[in-house]
C-alpha cells in the first residue's frame, strides 16, 4: 500500500520533471535563436520580451482577459443550458427531434468565422455579440453529447423500470439522466474551450476590449511581444475553463 503510494508520487515527480526540462530547453532554444539570428524582434519576440509584457502590462492583460472570461462564461452557461434542455425535449418528443435536429446539424456545419460578422452586425460591438457567439459554439457539443448520452441507456435497466411501472419522468431523472452524465460532461468540456474561442473570434470582428481585441490591435502596431502574451493568456483562459468543468465533473460523476 505504502509502496504503491510512493510509486504514484514518484510517477508524478517524473512527469513534472519531464515537463520542466522540456520547457526549459524549448524557451532557451527560442531565446537564443532569436537573439543570435537576424530575425527582427517585431516578427518573433524572444520569450524574455514576452515575459516583460506580463510584468509591465499585467493590468492591461488582466482587464482584457477578465472581459473575455465574462463573455465566454455567460456564453457557455447559456449555450450549455440550451443544449441540455433541447436534448431533453428531443428525448420526450420524437416529433420535435425530427423537426429540429437537422437544423441543429446544419447550423453546426457552418464555420464559426462565417457567422461571426453577422452576429456582431446584429448584436453590436459590445459584450452581447461575444456572449451570443460563445453560446452558439458551446451549444452543439453539449446538445449532441446529451442526446447521445440520454439515448445510450441499456435495454435491461429500462425493462427493469418498466417492470416497476415507472413514469417517463422517473425513467428520465433516475435512469437516463444519471446514465448520460459522463457523456454530458464530455460535451461540456469540449464546449468550455469552444466558448473561449467563440468570444475571442467575436472580439476579432469588432470589440473595445477583450483578449481577442488585444491580439488584433497589437498586431496592427507590430507589438508582437504583446500579441504573444495575449495568445498565452487566451490559452490559459481555455485551460482554466476546461479545468473548472473537469473538477465539477469529478464531483458529480463520482462513480467514474
Amino acid at each position, binding site marked *: 500500500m505504502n509502496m504503491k503510494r510512493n510509486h504514484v508520487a514518484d510517477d508524478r515527480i517524473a512527469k513534472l520533471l519531464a515537463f520542466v526540462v522540456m520547457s526549459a530547453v524549448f524557451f532557451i532554444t527560442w531565446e537564443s535563436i532569436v537573439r543570435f539570428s537576424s530575425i527582427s524582434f517585431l516578427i518573433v519576440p524572444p520569450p524574455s520580451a514576452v515575459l516583460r509584457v506580463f510584468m509591465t502590462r499585467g493590468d492591461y492583460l488582466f482587464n482584457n482577459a477578465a472581459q473575455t472570461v465574462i463573455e465566454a462564461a455567460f456564453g457557455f452557461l447559456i449555450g450549455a443550458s440550451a443544449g441540455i434542455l433541447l436534448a431533453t425535449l428531443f428525448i420526450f418528443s420524437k416529433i420535435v427531434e425530427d423537426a429540429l435536429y437537422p437544423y441543429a446539424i446544419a447550423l453546426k456545419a457552418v464555420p464559426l468565422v462565417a457567422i461571426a460578422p453577422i452576429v456582431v452586425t446584429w448584436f453590436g460591438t459590445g459584450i452581447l455579440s461575444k456572449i451570443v457567439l460563445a453560446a452558439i459554439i458551446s451549444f452543439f457539443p453539449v446538445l449532441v453529447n446529451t442526446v447521445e448520452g440520454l439515448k445510450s441507456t*441499456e435495454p*435491461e*435497466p429500462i*425493462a*427493469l*423500470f*418498466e*417492470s*416497476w*411501472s*415507472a413514469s417517463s419522468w*422517473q425513467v428520465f431523472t*433516475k*435512469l437516463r439522466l*444519471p446514465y448520460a452524465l459522463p457523456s454530458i460532461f464530455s460535451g461540456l468540456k469540449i464546449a468550455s474551450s469552444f466558448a473561449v474561442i467563440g468570444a475571442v473570434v467575436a472580439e476579432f470582428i469588432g470589440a473595445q476590449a477583450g483578449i481577442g481585441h488585444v491580439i488584433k490591435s497589437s498586431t496592427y502596431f507590430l507589438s508582437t511581444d504583446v500579441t504573444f502574451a495575449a495568445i498565452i493568456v487566451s490559452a490559459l483562459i481555455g485551460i482554466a475553463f476546461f479545468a473548472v468543468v473537469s473538477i465539477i465533473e469529478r464531483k458529480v460523476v*463520482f*462513480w467514474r
Partner: protein
Amino acid sequence: MLLTESRRKTSAVSAPFLEVKNVSHAYSLKGSSIEAVEDISIGMRKGEVLSIVGASGCGKSTLLKIISGITEPTKGEILFEGIPQGQRRRIQDVGFAFQKASLFPWRTVLQNILLPVEIKSKKTLKHYIGYAHELIEILGLSGFEGSYPRELSGGMLQRASLARALVVRPKLLLLDEPFSALDEITRESLWIDFNSIWKDCEVSVVLVTHSIREAVFLSDRVCVMSPRPGRIMKEFHAFPFLEAHRDTLFRKDFLELCKEIRSHL
C-alpha cells in the same frame, strides 16, 4: 422416491397462480413479421419454481417480458391469480432480475435495493428499510449497505440485484439468466443459497436459462423451448429445492435427467 414426493408437494397447493394461455408474440423487423414465441401455454402453482430452458434467441426472454406485463402478446393472454394481465398493479406482484445485475453505479447497495420502492412511492420508503436490511443479511451482503456497485464482486452484484427484486415482496419472481455471467464456482454457490432464499421469501419463480444443470437443480419443473419461433416442446418434473445441495449436482439420477432434457433441445 424423492421425485414423487416433490410432485405431491407441488400438486397439493391450491388454485392456478399463473396461467399462460395460448400466447404468441410476433414483432416486426424491417417490415416483415417475425414470430418470437408461438402458442405457449403454461400453468403454474403458487410456490412453484419453473424453469424455461432453450438455446439463445429462442424467445425465452420475450416470454418472460410477456409474463411480467412489459410486453403485450400479439395473441393469447396471461392470467395472474385469475386476473388478466394489464388489470393489475404490477409492482407488488412481480420482481425482475436479469443476467446483468444492472445496479446503478451512482447509488449505494441499499439505495439500489430500495429503488423499486422509491419509484412506487417515496412515502412508503421507510416501511421497507427494515425489510431491505433483512434481505441484505439473508443474501450475505451485510456490511456492504453503503458500498457502491464498483466495490462489489460479480456474485455480490447479482445478490444485490436479487434483493432489489425481492424488496417489494413480489408474489412472482422472474429471472432472466441471472447467473450466466458468473464463473462456475460462484454460480453453484449462488444456486444453493438462492434455493433457501426463495423458500424463505415464499415467492414463486420463473427462471429462464440456457443451463440445463441450473434448471434441473433449481426447479420443480423444467419446460424445454424449441428454437424460434419458441414453443414448449416438453415438460419435466425436476429436483425439488428441498433436497438441493452440492452433491446433488453429481448424482446419477440428476445427470441422467440433464442428459434426457439435452436430447430434446
